[in-house]
């Protein structure tokens, strides 16, 4: 079954015996839980669009491993065109969901592990690339969603892996057996981890020889014995539990998801090991994954940005302020910022190059510039959206008040709903409900559940801003630039 539908994907999750904890208890039916379901719907969209003739050109690709038509989220990029199409696909998904659709981390991990295992095998005579190729064929042919698991809890940031008071703060090998290894630790902030079929684990940072037990990469199913997850709550998440909630949710259908993934002595069979104490390749794997993931944000956040710009323009119309020149200028500024991010995503893809393994990687400098901009521009975009929306997006009554037929005992004898609809009416010809809907959408993206994906993930996802500045410093080639200046200025030393 090379290409699953969204429905088949959701059914495939039901077959897994995944352990999920939430609000202090185990959540057995997490698939239909109102807080979790929107994030599953989002991933389902990555499956459904692959079957849609209007989108399949971006959503599918031909596997270099099998020649089969596969979902692009499981593809190993074979050209700069593939890298460009990846970014375009992410923009498309952002436009369709206005959320984090979660499947990118796995795709970025595939491409990083593929090339790193190849180079590791060349140097150390290991067999990880063959392991990984077989794993990828399994992933592609079953159209799986995989959690790209890099970030460890890290404990005291001032100390390295081996110097932590608790060794479990970074995932590490605790036992080597003839048939595999046993690992222990956790991965924090894992996007889409609960609704992933498997977890592809990578080290979180470079590893020194003394700490080589932390240089480990492997894949395990989400229901592997010893593995469990604790759902990460989001701002305003319990609104989804309110009976009949719709308008107040802002985005009823879609959302993102993060969780803590714990490995309490999890066994990994030999064929699922992709790095095992080859400490000198941990840094390469981190750098490559981060590079791909920093490119990703030049697509996904742009798609969400498109919806935010549309919502801000509608809010202006519904408020009757759309003709004001400063509103038009703010929409222009939002578009400029958003398209700058897209330009960065496309640029680092166009300038990509083949790895020794044959798959393509992005231009590292440009991808880091892309993500550095992503740590800033979405914040400015939502600032402008809040400016255009007006304060009502955070002060208006609940949808139950708007719909209430409770008589308010005053002279006018109007219902609560009548009063709300009277005083929150905007421009002529616009229903109060539609005005509420667009303002609640903006509230959700600016400071509700979706702010996780659009704001804080833009800041820290794929690495905090300083991580990009370190890479920009490394790739900036200041010596060549000094030489250029010397030549033009006529300096001879």
């Amino acid at each position: 079954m090379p290409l699953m539908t969204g429905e088949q994907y959701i059914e495939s999750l039901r077959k897994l015996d995944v352990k999920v904890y939430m609000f202090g208890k185990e959540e057995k039916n997490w698939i239909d839980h109102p807080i979790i379901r929107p994030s599953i719907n989002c991933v389902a969209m990555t499956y459904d669009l692959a079957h849609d003739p209007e989108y399949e050109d971006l959503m599918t690709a031909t596997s270099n491993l099998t020649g089969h038509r596969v979902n692009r989220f499981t593809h190993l990029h074979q050209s700069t065109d593939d890298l460009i199409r990846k970014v375009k696909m992410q923009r498309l998904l952002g436009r369709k969901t206005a959320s984090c659709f979660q499947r990118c981390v796995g795709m970025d991990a595939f491409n990083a592990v593929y090339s790193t295992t190849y180079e590791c095998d060349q140097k150390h005579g290991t067999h990880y690339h063959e392991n990984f190729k077989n794993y990828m064929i399994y992933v592609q042919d079953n159209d799986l969603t995989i959690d790209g698991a890099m970030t460890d809890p890290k404990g005291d940031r001032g100390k390295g892996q081996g110097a932590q008071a608790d060794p479990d703060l970074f995932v590490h090998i605790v036992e080597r057996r003839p048939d595999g290894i046993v690992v222990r630790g956790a991965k924090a902030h894992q996007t889409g981890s609960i609704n992933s079929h498997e977890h592809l684990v990578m080290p979180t940072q470079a590893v020194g020889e003394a700490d080589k037990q932390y240089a480990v990469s492997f894949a395990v199913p989400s229901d592997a014995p010893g593995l469990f997850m604790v759902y990460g709550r989001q701002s305003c998440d319990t609104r989804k539990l309110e009976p009949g909630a719709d308008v107040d949710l802002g985005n009823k259908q879609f959302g993102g998801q993060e969780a803590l993934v714990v490995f309490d002595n999890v066994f990994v069979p030999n064929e699922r090991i992709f790095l095992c104490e080859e400490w000198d390749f941990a840094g390469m794997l981190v750098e490559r994954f981060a590079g791909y993931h920093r490119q990703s944000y030049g697509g996904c956040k742009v798609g969400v940005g498109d919806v935010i710009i549309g919502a801000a323009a509608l809010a202006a119309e519904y408020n009757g302020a759309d003709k004001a020149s400063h509103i038009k200028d703010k929409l222009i500024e939002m578009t400029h910022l958003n398209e700058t991010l897209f330009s960065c995503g496309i640029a680092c893809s166009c300038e990509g190059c083949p790895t020794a393994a044959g798959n393509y990687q992005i231009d590292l400098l440009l991808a880091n510039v892309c993500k550095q901009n992503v740590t800033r521009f979405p914040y400015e975009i939502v600032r402008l959206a809040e400016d255009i929306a007006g304060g009502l997006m955070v002060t208006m009554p609940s949808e139950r008040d708007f719909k209430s037929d409770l008589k308010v005992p005053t002279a006018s004898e109007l219902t609560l709903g009548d009063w709300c609809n009277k005083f929150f009416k905007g421009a002529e010809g616009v229903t109060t409900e539609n005005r509420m809907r667009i303002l609640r959408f903006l509230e959700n993206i600016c400071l509700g559940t979706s702010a996780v994906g659009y704001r804080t993930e833009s800041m820290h996802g794929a690495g905090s801003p300083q991580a990009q500045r370190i890479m920009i410093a490394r790739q900036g080639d200041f010596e060549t630039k000094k030489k250029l200046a010397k030549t033009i200025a006529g300096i001879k030393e």
Partner: protein
Amino acid sequence: MPDGDGKFRIGIKYCGGCRAHYERAAETARVTEALCPSGRYDFELAQPGIPYDVLLVATGCATACPSLSPYTYGRAVTITAAGGGAAAAEEIRKIAETPAELFG
């Protein structure tokens, strides 16, 4: 260049729609609505390996990025903007009425 059954075969191909500025399917529907009543034209979603007289390509923007190399076709007619369906239908009609040898 009609095939053996006299029908003029048209394969429809969409770009991936990453930032489509208009409803691509609405425009291709306009083409089918304009041409279908004559009974002369056969439309289907383009598939590699099947020969088409015309490949009708609906792209969301002027970049027109989809690769057409997997498809076998005589001529490509591209819609890149809203309202392009009417012109595309006209172009296909002209192609269908032009003697076959012009297309080799």
